[in-house]
Structure formats: structure tokens, C-alpha cells
């Protein structure tokens, strides 16, 4: 156990209350930055993909984790981000401009939808956003001159100051670009959560009446959260478009929305690192399963590839296992590991035993 004496409020206000945590983050960033020198194309591309999913996950996390609003339509914001960015670049805007504008457009769109949607909560909001998603999907098909309609479009290649950032031609550069974006957004997100705005999000999530009684404008707060959420998701969408290189409306399917929900819930609702853990799970575990499947075939001669859908099934079973074993998400497990480590060797197994819990209706809020 560490004992810390504090002589000012600053350590509590700072992002990291201990220097060693700051160093930990710096080290992590350094390793991430050096990744292109450490691993091959396959792993680097996967890492890039995971970063993009983590970014989208952070977008949804603001909404689901921090204001308690559920969206089944976040794929729509990915789409808006991707198409806006591509369209602007196609008319000659530089990436450095089109990219933030793509996020902004998605964000403003989200905030506009949020205004009528804020009266809804939970499942009702989820269905309303699903409806919005379907309508956006139709719009994408209808706006064929910009979106390529059903046929889809190829993402323009990124060039900043004469340096290529194309995912296929210059994967290293594209990876660094994603890393910078993700790092900046994470920093901003963490800032948000230690500031009054972030606290008002949490307030709205946990008790609407109290929030109002404290002078928080619930409608405005929710719309803001929705806007920020869709904005960040839009940024992720733009990157995803560049990452895949070709897309039509089928890229942004309901399954993407559902996968995003998996990212935030399995990762750990309400924790920024949860978005990363969730993204790693959703992108990494299926790959791991298929690599294991291949090696079972190569080394043991067991051909599991012959069973259709087995990979997905195994992944689903892993999800089920996770949820049963750790309903609060991966980040919850991580926290427990940390406590265990800090108390070592004093921690007892039963310290983490779950006590029985009971639910109450969420229809009264």
C-alpha cells in the first residue's frame, strides 16, 4: 500500500495523481509510437484497425458510459464522417481540414438529432437512433453523386505536406496519424471527464432530478454529449474509410453499431480505458481465434475451418463467458488485478467475491 500525502489540490485535478502513472502513459505512448519498427505489416495494420475502433468506442462511451444514453445507430455517424471526409477531399480540401470538419459535421448532426431525442431514454432512445440510422442509410444511397450510391466510393489518398499517409502505400505513416488522433482525443476526453462538463454528464446519467435541482440543463447536457459522441465517432468513421480504402453503405451496417456497443460494454462502461480494452477484444480476439484455428490445423491436423461459423460461435462463447465472469467489463477486471497487485501478498481471493445484487426498475427516473 502506498501512502500519499497531498499538499495541494493539484494532484487530484491532474490527469495522473502520481508521477509514475504519468511515466507509465509516456512509456505506453513511446512503445506505441515505435510499433512500426517492432512488428510487421499484419500486426501494424491490426493495431491501426484497433486504434480506429477504440476511437469509435470512445465516441460511443461518452454517450453510453457517461450520460447513460444508448444508441443503436452509431454506424450512421461513422458513415457521415467517412462520406463527409471523402467528399471534401474529393473537391480538393486537404485532409487536415476535411478531417476535423467531418467530425464537426457528424457532431452537429448528432446534436441536432439529440434535441428531439433527449426526452427519450434507454431502449426508446436506442430504437429512435436505429431509425435515424436507417434513414441515414437511405440518404447515403440517395445522395449517389456524393456517396457513390450503392456502388460506393474509393477513399482519396491522404497527403500532408507532401508526405503520403495512404493506408496501403504508407501504412507506417497512416498508423502514426491514427495514433496521434487517438492520443489527442483520449487526452481531450480525459480532460473532459475531470472538468465540470464531464461531471454534468455523470450527473445526468445517475439522477436526472438531482441534476436539474443543481441547475444542470438536462436537455442541453444530453445534446452536448450526443454531439461530442457523434463527432468523435465521425472522426473514427473518416479514418475507417481511409483504412479500408473502399466503402459503400454496407460498410456501416447495424452490426457495426452492435459491435460498438460490445466494445463499450465489454470494455467497461464509463471508463475511457474500457474503450481500448473493448476494441482490442472485438478486433483482436476473432483474429486470435482464427490463428489458433489455423495452428490447430497445421500442428494437430484438426481442421476446425471445416465447421462453418465456428469462429464466430467461439467468439460468442467467449463473450458469454466474459459477461458471466465479469459483468462490469474488462476494465473492472483490470482494476481488481491492480488492487490485487498493490496489496500483494495480502489480497485474498474472496475479496473479489461478488455479493448478491438486485435490480430495480429503470422505468422511474
Amino acid at each position, binding site marked *: 500500500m502506498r501512502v500519499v500525502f497531498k499538499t495541494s489540490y493539484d494532484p487530484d485535478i491532474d490527469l495522473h495523481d502520481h508521477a509514475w502513472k504519468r511515466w507509465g502513459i509516456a512509456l505506453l505512448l513511446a512503445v506505441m509510437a515505435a510499433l512500426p519498427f517492432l512488428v510487421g505489416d499484419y500486426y501494424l495494420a491490426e493495431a491501426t484497425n484497433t486504434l480506429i475502433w477504440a476511437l469509435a468506442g470512445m465516441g460511443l462511451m461518452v454517450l453510453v458510459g457517461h450520460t447513460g444514453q444508448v444508441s443503436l445507430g452509431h454506424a450512421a455517424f461513422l458513415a457521415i464522417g467517412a462520406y463527409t471526409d471523402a467528399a471534401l477531399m474529393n473537391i480538393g480540401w486537404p485532409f487536415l481540414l476535411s478531417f476535423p470538419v467531418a467530425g464537426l459535421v457528424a457532431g452537429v448532426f448528432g446534436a441536432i438529432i439529440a434535441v428531439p431525442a433527449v426526452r427519450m431514454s434507454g431502449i426508446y432512445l436506442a430504437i429512435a437512433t436505429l431509425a435515424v440510422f436507417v434513414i441515414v442509410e437511405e440518404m447515403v444511397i440517395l445522395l449517389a453523386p456524393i456517396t457513390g450510391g450503392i456502388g460506393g466510393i474509393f477513399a482519396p489518398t491522404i497527403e500532408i505536406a507532401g508526405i503520403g499517409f495512404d493506408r496501403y502505400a504508407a501504412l507506417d505513416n497512416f498508423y502514426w496519424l491514427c495514433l496521434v488522433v487517438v492520443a489527442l482525443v483520449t487526452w481531450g476526453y480525459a480532460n473532459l471527464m475531470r472538468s465540470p462538463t464531464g461531471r454534468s454528464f455523470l450527473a445526468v446519467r445517475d439522477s436526472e432530478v438531482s441534476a436539474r435541482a443543481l441547475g444542470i440543463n438536462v436537455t442541453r447536457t444530453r445534446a452536448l454529449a450526443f454531439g461530442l459522441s457523434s463527432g468523435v465517432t465521425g472522426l473514427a468513421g473518416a479514418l475507417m474509410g481511409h483504412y479500408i480504402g473502399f466503402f459503400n453503405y454496407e460498410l456501416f451496417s447495424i452490426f457495426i453499431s452492435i459491435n460498438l456497443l460490445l466494445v463499450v460494454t465489454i470494455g467497461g462502461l464509463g471508463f475511457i480505458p474500457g474503450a481500448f480494452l473493448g476494441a482490442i477484444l472485438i478486433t483482436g480476439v476473432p483474429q486470435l481465434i482464427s490463428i489458433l484455428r489455423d495452428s490447430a490445423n497445421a500442428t494437430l491436423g484438426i481442421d476446425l475451418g471445416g465447421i462453418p461459423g465456428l469462429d464466430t460461435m467461439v467468439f460468442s462463447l467467449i463473450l458469454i463467458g466474459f459477461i458471466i465472469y465479469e459483468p462490469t467489463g474488462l476494465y473492472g477486471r483490470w482494476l481488481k488485478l491492480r*488492487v490485487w497487485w498493490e496489496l500483494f501478498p495480502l489480497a485474498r481471493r*474472496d*475479496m*473479489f*467475491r*461478488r*455479493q*448478491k445484487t*438486485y435490480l430495480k*426498475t429503470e*422505468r*422511474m427516473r
Partner: protein
Amino acid sequence: MSLLEVRNVETFYGAIMALRGVSIDVEEGEIVTILGANGAGKTTLMKTIAGLMDPEKGQITFDGTPITGLEPDRIVQKGLSLVPEGREVFPYLSVEENLRLGAYTRKGGHAEDLALVYSYFPILKERQRQAAGFLSGGQQQMLAIGRGLMARPRLMLLDEPSLGLSPLLTQEIFAIIARLNAEQGVTMLVVEQNAHIALVTAHKGYVLETGRIVMAGDAETLRNSEDIQEFYLGKSEAGQRGQKRWKRRKTWR
């Protein structure tokens, strides 16, 4: 043999140990009260007895049969009913439905009991069709107590029954407790902040502090204890405290 025996029970919330080896006995036909400061673990004890929480260690026996680790609904079927802290009514069900559910474990009609509860709390009869979630705090408390009565239990656990009730109703509740005990022989285990009325009504009492029983005895003895008077009855030295706001240390710590 006691109706309820709690032996050496330890209950945790994750890593937090809320009960540190609690043992109590409740004899058939008794009213027993548990006193204790905020966070002492009274609610935890009640929930553990009712099966709502799993103890890590220890045994609980009810009427000679062990009930440790049973599902709460099985425990209720054995004749033990809990009026929980903080009302816990079914907000979207009507007052009458709430009461009817109180008799869930019982076979046959319960019109009589319904009438009895309504006679105790006429306001509930007036509001029998209203959704329970929109009753006032005190009305919900009455409903929770009424619901507990509907089960016609052998042992009733009451967790702060007077919470949010007017002084008049607090007196009435304790009168009802005493009457049920005297007339129908219902055994009562009551957690109450209003130690004064609790100790007047009860036969026996325990004092629970930070998860341990620190004092036990019949109501008379407890009422005369200095510590109890100081901390739970607020009698002695009120004036002095008022001026100095100085707190005496509890001697059992």
C-alpha cells in the same frame, strides 16, 4: 431452542467486511431490537438473515433448520418476513397489488388480512388503486409494513419501520408491533433509530457497532446503561453537548 439463531456470521461487500462475527438469538414470542450507529451493519445483518446476502462464514438457523445460503424466497416460505430499509415497494403496481403480493407465499384467501392492514392504515385503503410509486414517503413506508404483515410470518424483521413516519404513526406502528406480538405471538426483530420507543416496546436488545455486537441484554438493562442513554436516547448531558459540541467516546470501543 431459539426461533432464530445467528452464529458467528461474517458478511462482505467485496473486500469490505460489514459483519465481523455476529451472533444473536431471538426466542419465540419475543420482540428483540438492534441498535447501532450509522453504518454499523444493521441492514446488512437483516439482509443476511433474510437470505438477500450471502454470509462468508457462520450459520443461521430458523426454527431448528439451517437457512444459511438458501434462496430468499425459500426462507420467506418458512415463515420469516422482512420489511426492508428504504421501503422497496413495487412502484408500478397498485397499493392493493402490493399488499396481495405480501401474501404470495400463503395459500387461500387473505381478504381478512387485507382488511386488517387497511384498518391499521386507512390511507392505503383510500389509495388502493393508485400506483405505489407515487405515494408519499411515509405512505410507502406504511405500505411496506402492511405488505410484511400480509405474510403472517412467525418472525418479522423490521428495518427502521419508523423511517419517515409522523410521530403519531410511529407510535401506532410500535403499538401494532406490540399487539401482534402479544395477541398472535409473532416474534419481532426490529432495527430502529428511535431507540427510545424501540426499547420501550422490546423485551431484549443488542447493540451493533462496526459489525460487532458490543452489548446485549434485556430492554430494561439497556435503557439504564449510560452509553445507551448518551448515544441512543440522547438524554444526558444534552445541554453540555449543546454548548461545547464535545463528544464522549463510547466505552465499548
